[in-house]
């Protein structure tokens, strides 16, 4: 339940609980302090009276004086209506006493001599008292010593404390309520930026992915969240754009072969022909279909890579792949083509990488066929293998026209062709080769770069040599 409580309710509750606790402690401390103060006041009053009594008793020099002592004590001690007094002789006979009050006899008999004035408290019926007792020496041996006890009725203190406590309780309750309300107001005001963010977030749709949360307008605590959300939105926008670009690219790419097929078939059907020309049409169609089928399977391959299926497969079925052997096998495959083009294939170095052999072979194959396509006669396609820090690196370098910087970045895009007319004319490839290579390398947690300078184009792949090598993780994704 508590997890589902709204932030405002939580903050309100916390405010109310916090302030009530503080007020309660404050109230308790105030009570204790006032109690102490009363005690001190009582003590001072009682000590003063006791001193008077002491002086009066010390002036008694003979039994004759004793009669006057009683009236003197009465004058000194009585008259304060809260004050009660009792004077005892050494054998316990009462010499003087206020009415209706009995001092606890045990502390009368054990009353200390001299200056010690300890406060004692006791209750009698509903009333409670605070008092002190003292044994005082006299000049008359018969009354040696006299015990004087004085006490005050604490009723007026108690009345005061009760009303104070009542007031305090009412105040605490009101304060808790007030802080609750104030807390609620503060929380609602304080959380207003969140509502603004929510409103902005609701405005984000597939068509309006460019909406961003304003980082500057929100408090610093929310700025980080807003930044993270904005980054997420940017990634989504990017992926979404790529996806919709891809869909439109597919439609574009399919349009040419489909339109070829339609035209060809319609023309063939437009009038009767001999078997041979039907055959030619069908053969030409078959070639076009094959291209379509290849494009579809390439696109499915990329889709699988995008969904992460490929990485999962590699994690489960990866092995150490001897790259030099793979390159040699590929050289054998491309040998005839290279010879016919008068291009030399060269391999330097050796290393192994972690992953799926077939996929890696396909990735390198695409780089090689790409290099072969653009290498001029008598040129050399050079493949270099090296390793270090648990990373294998493979570079495919070929002479050829320098590719401008802005095109280099786009080489790995699907269907991107640096030279559209040339590709279309030869009918080779689906324009997905380098995109597939990149997808394979990324699925292997590797990185791929392209560079072109001074008539040399170079593709470089870095692959981890063992599974789970964080250094090679592609930061671009």
């Amino acid at each position, binding site marked *: 339940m508590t997890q589902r409580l709204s932030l405002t309710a939580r903050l309100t509750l916390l405010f109310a609980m916090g302030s009530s606790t503080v007020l309660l402690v404050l109230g308790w401390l105030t009570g204790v302090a006032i109690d102490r103060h009363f005690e001190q006041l009582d003590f001072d009053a009682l000590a003063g009276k006791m001193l008077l009594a002491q002086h009066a008793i010390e002036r008694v020099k003979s039994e004759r004086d004793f009669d006057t002592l009683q009236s003197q004590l009465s004058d000194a001690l009585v008259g304060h209506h809260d004050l009660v007094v009792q004077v005892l002789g050494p054998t316990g006979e009462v010499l003087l006493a206020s009415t209706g009050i009995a001092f606890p006899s045990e502390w009368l008999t054990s009353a200390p001599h001299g200056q010690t004035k300890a406060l004692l408290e006791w209750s009698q019926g509903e009333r409670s008292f605070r008092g002190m007792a003292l044994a005082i020496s006299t000049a008359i041996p018969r009354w040696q010593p006299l015990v004087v006890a004085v006490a005050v009725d604490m009723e007026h203190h108690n009345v005061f404390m009760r009303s104070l406590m009542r007031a305090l309780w009412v105040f605490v309750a009101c304060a808790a309520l007030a802080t609750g309300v104030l807390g609620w107001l503060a929380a609602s005001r304080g959380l207003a930026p969140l509502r603004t963010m929510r409103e902005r977030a609701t405005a984000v749709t597939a068509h309006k992915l460019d909406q961003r949360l304003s980082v500057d307008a929100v408090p610093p605590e929310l700025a980080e969240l807003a930044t993270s959300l904005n980054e997420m939105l940017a990634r989504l926008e990017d992926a979404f754009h790529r996806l919709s670009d891809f869909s439109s690219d597919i439609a574009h790419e399919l349009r040419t072969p489909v339109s070829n097929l339609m035209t060809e078939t319609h023309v063939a059907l437009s009038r009767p022909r001999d078997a041979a020309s039907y055959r030619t049409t069908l053969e030409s169609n078959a070639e076009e279909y*094959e291209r379509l*089928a*290849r494009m579809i399977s*390439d696109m499915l391959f990329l889709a699988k890579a995008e969904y992460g299926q490929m990485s999962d497969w590699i994690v489960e079925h990866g092995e150490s792949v001897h790259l030099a052997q793979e390159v040699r096998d590929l050289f054998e*495959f491309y040998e*005839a083509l290279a010879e016919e083009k008068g291009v030399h294939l060269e391999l330097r170095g050796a290393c192994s990488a972690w992953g799926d052999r077939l996929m890696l072979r396909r990735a390198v194959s695409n780089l090689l066929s790409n290099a072969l396509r653009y290498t001029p006669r008598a040129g050399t396609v050079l493949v270099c293998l090296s390793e270090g820090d648990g990373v294998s690196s493979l570079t495919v370098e070929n002479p050829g026209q320098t590719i401008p910087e802005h095109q280099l970045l786009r080489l790995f895009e699907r269907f991107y062709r640096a030279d559209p007319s040339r590709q279309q004319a030869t009918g080779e490839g689906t324009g997905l080769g380098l995109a597939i290579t990149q997808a394979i390398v990324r699925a292997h947690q590797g990185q791929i770069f392209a560079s072109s300078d001074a008539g040399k184009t170079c593709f470089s792949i870095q692959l981890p040599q063992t599974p789970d090598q964080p250094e090679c993780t592609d930061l671009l994704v």
Partner: protein
Amino acid sequence: MKILIVEDELKTGDYLKQGLSEAGFVTELASNGVDGLHQALTGDFDLLVLDVMLPGLNGWQVMERLRQSGKNLPVLFLTARDQVEDRVKGLELGADDYLVKPFAFSELLARVRTLLRRGKNGLEPSILQAANLELDLLRRRVVRAGNRIELTAKEFALLELLLRRQGEVLPRSMIASQVWDMNFDSDTNVIEVAIRRLRAKVDDPYEPKLIRTARGMGYVLEVPEGT
């Protein structure tokens, strides 16, 4: 050779039936899993071409029940979904081969023939022959019209494949996979070039011409009719 095709899509089923019939096989067509299973269990077939997505029983289930009842005829799966798990599942269940739609008919035909040939343990001939071309597997020698021809290892393997599959149209993908172990489509004309170079050595200077291009499908080695 009798082949049972289980395919629910009418057009595909009809074309498969027609194509395989014309290639010289006796074929029957079932359009759902239940009928397919029944026919496979009761009829005497040499091969089952089985679509995965079927009404009634799907391909996997047909396969499972077939194997449970002890039928061990080879099965070639057809599927529109190229999921790695699918492939693994199919092979685990005992499928013999697997083709992803869209596929070239020549590819299907080549695989069907491979499956039917498998398990037949006739004596492996050590010399393959077509007209006046002779390939000696043991001595790794090729002779055409009495002349010794020097071939590279891969050219030899390519010619061997064509000779073994005489009369069959071999799609480029199959040639790439069998000769170079490249199990993916290359976007280059490597196979075309390789065939051209083989022809230059084996076919061009001689008659009759044995290696023919089946446009849009692949390559075939056959002795032309009338020779």
